[in-house]
C-alpha cells in the first residue's frame, strides 16, 4: 500500500562525485516488496522547491526497518536533500509504481542487470533479491568516469560485474553495450535502468531473450492521477492508448512501450 510518512534520516554520506547515499527509517519500509519501485520525496515543507522528487529504492533493510536511496545532487531539490543530516525527517510517499518482476526468472537461471549512471541504484536491490532466489547475476554498469562510479564492490560481491566508463577511467572505455559485446555477456532475463539512449541500444543489443527496462519521466503526482508521465505503448505508437511511467511503470517489459 502507498503510504505517506515523515521518515527519519539514519545516515547520509557522499559516495562519489555528486552522488549521495541516504538511509531512512520508518514503517513505510514494510511496504517495500518488489525491487525497482520508487519513493516520492518532499524535500522541505515550504513552497520552493514545490514538487516531490522521484528516487528509486536502492536497498531495503527489512529487519532494521530502513531503506537506502542513492541519488545525484544536481538541481535545487537534490542539492537541498544532500544537506540533510541524520536525525532530520523527510516526507516520503511510497512505495510507488511497479518494479522489476522477480518471478520472471527462475532459480539457476542467469539475470543480466545493466545500469547507467543514476540508473544503477535500483539494480542493487534487485541483485540482492535475485541472489536470494539463487539466480545467477551478471552486472554491466556504466558511468561517466571513475569519480562518479559507486557501489562497485557491493556489486562485485553479488556477482560478475563488468564496467564501462565514457573516458575509460574505470572498466572498459565505452558504453555498457560495448562491454556486453566485448565480454559476450548473455543471460536469460535482462533487467535494465538508465538513460533512454542506453535502453534503446539494449533493445537492439539484448543479451537475453526477454527483458525489463525502467524508465524515467518528469512527474507531477507520482501516483497516476495527473497524466504528466505517460508514454505510448508499442502497439499504438501514435494513438490515444498510453502507459503511465509512475503507476504502470517505471518498469516495463522490453517492447511494451515506445522508448
Amino acid at each position: 500500500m502507498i503510504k505517506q510518512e515523515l521518515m527519519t534520516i539514519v545516515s547520509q554520506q557522499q559516495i562519489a562525485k555528486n552522488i549521495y547515499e541516504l538511509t531512512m527509517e520508518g514503517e513505510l519500509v514494510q511496504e517495500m516488496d518488489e525491487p525497482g519501485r520508487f519513493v516520492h520525496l518532499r524535500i522541505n515543507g515550504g513552497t520552493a522547491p514545490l514538487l516531490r522528487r522521484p528516487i528509486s529504492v536502492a536497498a531495503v533493510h527489512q529487519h532494521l526497518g530502513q531503506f537506502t536511496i542513492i541519488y545525484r545532487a544536481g538541481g535545487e531539490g537534490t542539492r537541498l536533500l544532500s544537506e540533510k543530516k541524520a536525525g532530520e525527517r523527510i516526507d516520503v510517499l511510497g512505495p510507488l509504481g511497479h518494479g522489476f518482476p522477480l518471478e520472471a526468472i527462475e532459480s539457476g537461471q542467469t539475470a543480466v542487470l545493466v545500469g547507467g549512471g543514476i540508473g544503477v541504484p535500483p539494480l542493487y536491490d534487485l541483485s540482492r533479491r535475485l541472489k536470494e532466489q539463487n539466480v545467477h547475476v551478471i552486472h554491466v554498469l556504466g558511468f561517466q568516469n571513475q569519480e562518479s562510479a559507486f557501489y562497485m564492490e557491493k556489486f562485485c560481491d553479488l556477482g560478475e560485474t563488468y564496467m564501462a566508463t565514457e573516458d575509460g577511467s574505470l572498466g572498459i572505455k565505452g558504453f555498457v553495450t560495448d562491454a556486453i559485446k566485448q565480454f559476450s555477456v548473455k543471460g536469460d532475463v535482462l533487467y535494465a535502468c538508465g538513460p533512454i539512449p542506453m535502453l534503446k541500444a539494449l533493445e537492439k543489443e539484448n543479451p537475453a531473450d526477454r527483458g525489463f527496462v525502467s524508465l524515467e519521466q518528469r512527474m507531477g503526482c507520482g501516483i497516476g492521477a495527473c497524466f504528466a508521465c505517460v508514454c505510448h505503448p508499442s502497439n499504438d505508437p501514435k494513438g490515444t492508448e498510453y502507459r503511465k511511467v509512475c503507476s504502470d511503470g517505471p518498469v516495463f517489459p522490453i517492447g511494451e512501450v515506445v522508448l
Partner: protein
Amino acid sequence: MNPLHVQLPGLELKNPVMPASGCFGFGREFSQLYDLNQLGAIMIKATTPEPRFGNPTPRVAETPSGMLNAIGLQNPGLKKVISDELPWLSQFDVPIIANIAGSEMEDYVTVAEAISQVDNVKALELNISCPNVKTGGIAFGTVPEIAKELTKKVKEVSEVPVYVKLSPNVTNIVEIAKAVEEGGADGITMINTLLGMKIDIHTGRALLANGTGGLSGPAVKPIAVRMIYEVSQHVHIPIIGMGGISSLDDILEFFYAGASAVAIGTANFVDPFICPKLIAQLQDYVDANGIDHISELTGRSWKVRGNRTYIGS
C-alpha cells in the same frame, strides 16, 4: 446545519473543499489513499468528445513556488468517461463536477448534453480557459462575446447547472465573468492556469515539449485572490475559487476574497492527503471560532462591515 455544508447551484456540498480538475484524474488513484466520501465534490479531468493522448512529454516543469503543465487535455473521451469512470465514481456519495472541453463549440455541446444526463454529475464546469490546446480553447475564454455564446449553447442542452471556468490570461476578467453570467452561467470557477514557459538552460530550448504551459501552485495565488476579489463584486453567481491553495489560511483568504467554495489542484501532488487534511482543519476552525456558517466569510475583504448585503448575495 453543519457550518461547512454549502449549497450551490446543483451542488449539495458536505464541505466547500474539492480537488480541482486535472489534478485528481477520475479519483481512482486517490481512492487508494483515503475515502473519497470526505470530499465536498470532485472536479474530474476535462472530457472531450473523442479520446485524446495530449501533448508529448515532458509535460510538467517546476518553477519557483509553482509548476508548469502542458498535459494537453489527455482523456479517454466522452464514451469511456460515461461508461467507465462516472459509474465507478457513483459508489461515492460525492457530487461530480464534470469539466468539459473541446476545440469547437459543438464539442462542448456534445459533451455537455451527454454527460449532464449521468446521475452523479451534478454540475458542469466549462473549461474555456485551458492554455494547452492549440485550437479553440484559449480564445473561448478571452473574448466575452464568444464566452457568452458558448455558455448559452451549453446551458440549452445541459440537464444540470453550468459553471464556467475563467482564464486568468485576460486584460479584464470582470468583463468575461459578466459575459458568462449574462450567458446564463450558474456559477464561476476560477482561476485556470497562467500561460508560462521555462527554458532548459542546458539546451536553450523550452523544457516542456509543448513549449509553453500553464502555471499553477502557490506562485499564482496572489493573482487568483485579486481576480476573485474583483469578479465577486461584480457578479451575482457564486465562485468556486482555486489557484495555489495549500493551507487553511489560503482557504480563508479565498473566502475573504469572495469565493463560496474552493478547489485544490497542484497541492494534491505535493501532499496527496491535502484535501481531507484541510477539510478537517477547516471544520476545527469554524468550530473553534463559533462561525455559524462558512458563507459568512465569503467576500469579507470587500463587504462593508456591519452591512452584510452586497451585490453578490
